């Protein structure tokens, strides 16, 4: 299929902004409270109440705009998106329509061939979230929880520059990484703080005109984004190849069945009757403000990746993995700066054993059982030949299980490497004496048998003999 069809994808990402209070009221945005305990009269849309903009969201949106090399609009306007739904208290959502706060941004992802690919960001606008309808456990009624109503969102709209589910995920991960670096969103996908809608279409390779798109709503994990898009692409191609036509419609992804289902067609779509909200003034931002915000920008993932390559000599891919997450990159830097081992060794451990252990236990890097300083301590023991790399894996497991730092584990388990030549020589002599056949074969030219002898020595010493010394002594004695 990939030979004949080109896939065109655009994403609308909703990132919840990490403010203490809501976008237009003083109510708290904290997650997980009892239903309707974090909704004030403004959130409830009571008669006579008015929205007042939380200025923090403007600063956050401006920060994002600058981070993706976008234009931060000197003047943006809030508009009302009108539709009826029980979890939308005012009967309209306050959003931005014609004049969003951020426009014309970009970021770069790595495509399937390993090349950098530019993805355009059409716009990012501020809006309020709606509440939540609850249908379970209420007999024949539906419940409404308005705690989430009025939570600030930044909706980030990409150009249709993405050509595969893989690229879509890479782009979404990049945005995720940027908002986390900026500290403007916690990016928590389980709590719905970071989710997206995917616009997907296909067209015959080489055709200029875009195919009809469908929009898959409310994808709240990277895995679902990938699976939903892949399903949708195949569905559309099959449909067209069978002589059918793709309908412009909104679809929902069912993760249990791994399929998308039609939600409503274009004809059934609402006419939102957008118009500027007369209760709110236009947001006006001057150059001084923008420069002040720019001064607060942290080092961003791309810059940090370059620095990791330049300063630490890391491989391109490893630098990318480490810098995708601010916390992971911080952890790595803490290890690398505390150990005498090479930075690439530190990177290998963080990306390899540490990440595997975190994954296995379902932990975030912030919750790691091994502190960065302790991992650095372990690497130092490899570096100074106290233990071998192989023994280090055992020490790591013990540290992870809570047996103390590297030195504690090495001491308690007696894992210190044997570097005393005479002690190694004794063992080597015994192995040679016990295996006359293999010795004869080796001397007759079967060089590969050296591995057998090394293995025997290591077995005898419980893996603690210094492998380099073992090799040298064996070769010497067998020659």
């Amino acid at each position, binding site marked *: 299929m990939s030979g004949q069809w080109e896939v065109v994808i655009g994403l609308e990402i909703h990132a919840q902004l990490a403010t203490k209070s809501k976008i237009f009221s003083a109510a708290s945005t904290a997650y997980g409270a009892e239903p309707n305990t974090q909704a004030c*009269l403004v959130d*409830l*849309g*009571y*008669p*006579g*109440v*008015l*929205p*007042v*903009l939380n200025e923090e969201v403007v600063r956050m949106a401006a920060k994002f705009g600058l981070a993706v090399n976008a234009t931060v609009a000197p003047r943006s306007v809030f508009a*009302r998106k*009108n539709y*009826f739904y*029980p979890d939308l*208290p*005012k*009967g*309209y959502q306050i959003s931005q329509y014609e004049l969003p706060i951020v426009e014309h941004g970009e970021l770069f992802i790595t495509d399937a061939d390993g090349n950098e690919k530019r993805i355009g960001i059409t716009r990012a606008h501020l809006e309020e979230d709606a509440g939540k309808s609850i249908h379970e456990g209420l007999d024949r009624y539906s419940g*409404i929880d308005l705690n989430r109503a009025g939570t600030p969102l930044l909706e980030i709209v990409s150009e249709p520059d993405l050509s595969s589910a893989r690229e879509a995920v890479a782009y979404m991960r990049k945005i995720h990484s940027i908002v986390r670096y900026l500290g403007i969103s916690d990016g928590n996908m389980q709590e719905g703080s970071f989710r997206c809608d995917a616009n997907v279409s296909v067209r015959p390779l080489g055709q200029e005109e875009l195919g009809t798109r469908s929009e898959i709503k409310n994808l709240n994990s990277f895995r679902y984004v990938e699976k939903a898009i892949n399903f949708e692409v195949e569905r559309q191609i099959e449909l067209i190849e069978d002589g059918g036509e793709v309908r412009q419609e909104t679809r929902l992804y069912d993760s249990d069945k791994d399929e998308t289902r039609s939600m409503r067609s274009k004809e059934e779509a609402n*006419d939102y*009757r*957008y*118009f500027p909200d*007369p*209760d*709110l*003034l236009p947001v006006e931002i001057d150059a001084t403000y923008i420069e002040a915000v720019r001064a607060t920008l942290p080092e961003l993932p791309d810059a940090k990746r370059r620095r990791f390559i330049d300063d630490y000599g890391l491989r391109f891919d490893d630098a990318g993995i480490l810098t995708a997450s601010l916390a992971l990159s911080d952890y790595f830097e803490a290890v690398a700066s505390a150990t005498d081992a090479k930075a690439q060794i530190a990177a290998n451990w963080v990306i390899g054993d540490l990440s595997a252990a975190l994954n296995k236990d379902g932990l975030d890097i912030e919750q790691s059982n091994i502190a960065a300083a302790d991992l650095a301590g372990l690497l130092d023991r490899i570096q100074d030949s106290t233990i071998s790399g192989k023994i280090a894996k055992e020490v790591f497991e013990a540290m992870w299980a809570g047996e103390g730092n590297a030195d504690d584990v090495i001491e308690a388990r007696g894992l210190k490497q044997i570097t005393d030549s005479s002690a190694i020589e004794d063992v080597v002599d015994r192995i040679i004496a016990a295996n006359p056949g293999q010795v004869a074969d080796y001397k007759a030219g079967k060089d590969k048998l050296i591995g057998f002898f090394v293995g025997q020595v290591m077995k005898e010493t419980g893996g603690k003999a210094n492998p380099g010394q073992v090799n040298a002594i064996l070769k010497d004695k067998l020659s």
Partner: protein
Amino acid sequence: MSQDLHLQTLTQLAAGLENGTFSSVDITKALLDRIDLHNGRLNAFITVTAEQALADAQRADDARASGNAGVLNGLPIVHKDIFCTRDVLTTCGSRMLENFVSPYDATVVKRMAEAGAVMLGKSNMDEFAMGSSNETSYFGPVMNPWNLECSPGGSSGGSAAAVAARLAPAATGTDTGGSIRQPAALTGTVGLKPTYGRVSRYGMIAFASSLDQAGVITRSTADAAMLLGVMAGFDERDSTSINQPVPDYVAGLDKSLKGLRVGIVRQHFDEGLDDNCGVAVKDALALLEAQGAILTEVDLPNLELSVPTYYVVAPAECSSNLSRFDGVRFGHRADDAEDLFDLYCRSRGEGFGAEVKRRIMTGTYVLSAGYYDAYYLKAQQVRQLIADDFRKAFAGVDVIAGPTTPTPAFKLGDKTDDPITMYLNDIYTIGANLAGLPGISVPCGMVDDMPVGLHLVGAHFGEETLLNCAHQYEQRTDWNEACPEDFR
């Protein structure tokens, strides 16, 4: 003593309270008695808060005794039922909010209460302030104290009737297209609509957010100035309120009109204006001139477009503002809804009256895809032109003067079947709303035994000049002292 308390203006009552001639409890009792006696004929009140008023009056008297009297300490006030009042019914003249008790006070209500004012009750009004005759109220029309067969105007008709009938010396109102000034003119009272943004809209149930402005209906300009001083000022709960110092409006009332440049709009005296009303207004202009004002003609070339512009912008905003009344969280909820759609349709269908529905439908239409540019966007452009016309005019004049309404009060029922004629009643007042300017109507004569108003419009934040001009005019006339015979 108590027989004439109802005839006194707010300023006079304030002096009497200060001198200890009478107490706030005396005033409150006297007025509650009058309301009890006369409201049946007028239907000016939806709610009378007698018990609360007497308690507040006592508290005000105590405060005065202990030397803690605010600017309005012990003075009675009536609030239009569009202002949210904590723990008191707030209906907005609609079945939709027939049983709605507000959990909070509007900023206007709060500021007046903090200054010591005593609320007597909530006044009747056109439903959601949509109307010019008070006939769209779910609670029935208000009668004009000058002729019970006539409308007092609207939408603040209850406030105007209550003040004209001496049931209260002052009442709040709201003005989206003339809803304070037109009823003031038709009842022989003073009606002030301040500059858009001068007074907070928080807690004032929205009709058309970009046009709505709170104001007052009183029996003298000095009273209006006193109340404005309390109501005005920035409110962090209303982003469209403007952060500008509030001058002492009362202290600014004694300036001579010598050299004041008064603009006259020629079109205001063209056809459509009742001849006798025209004569009354021209007499008023002559009096201003006699006081030293300089009359000059000003041109507002786009003003004739103000009514159609208004009837696109206002319904558009109202169609969205009234979406929150859906039967889900508060207000009227239809019984036994089959499903969500049925709940919406019937709650709104039953809760709203015909005029409100007409405007919601008009507004929904002008905002719809394919019509937005031709109606809403075009109307906003014309609105800008009208505002520009005013700005240019105010480069050469200090106030613009003319009639408030084309005719004196009309008979109840006369215009209910003809919305367009009804809409034209606001032809002279709508421009100030579209341009966000302050306006005032003061009594300037009687035509066929019914009052007529002089309309003055000021420049942006030009309340001081506007109030001074109205006050100086009042000093040479006694139209504002005229009282309907049945209510002396």
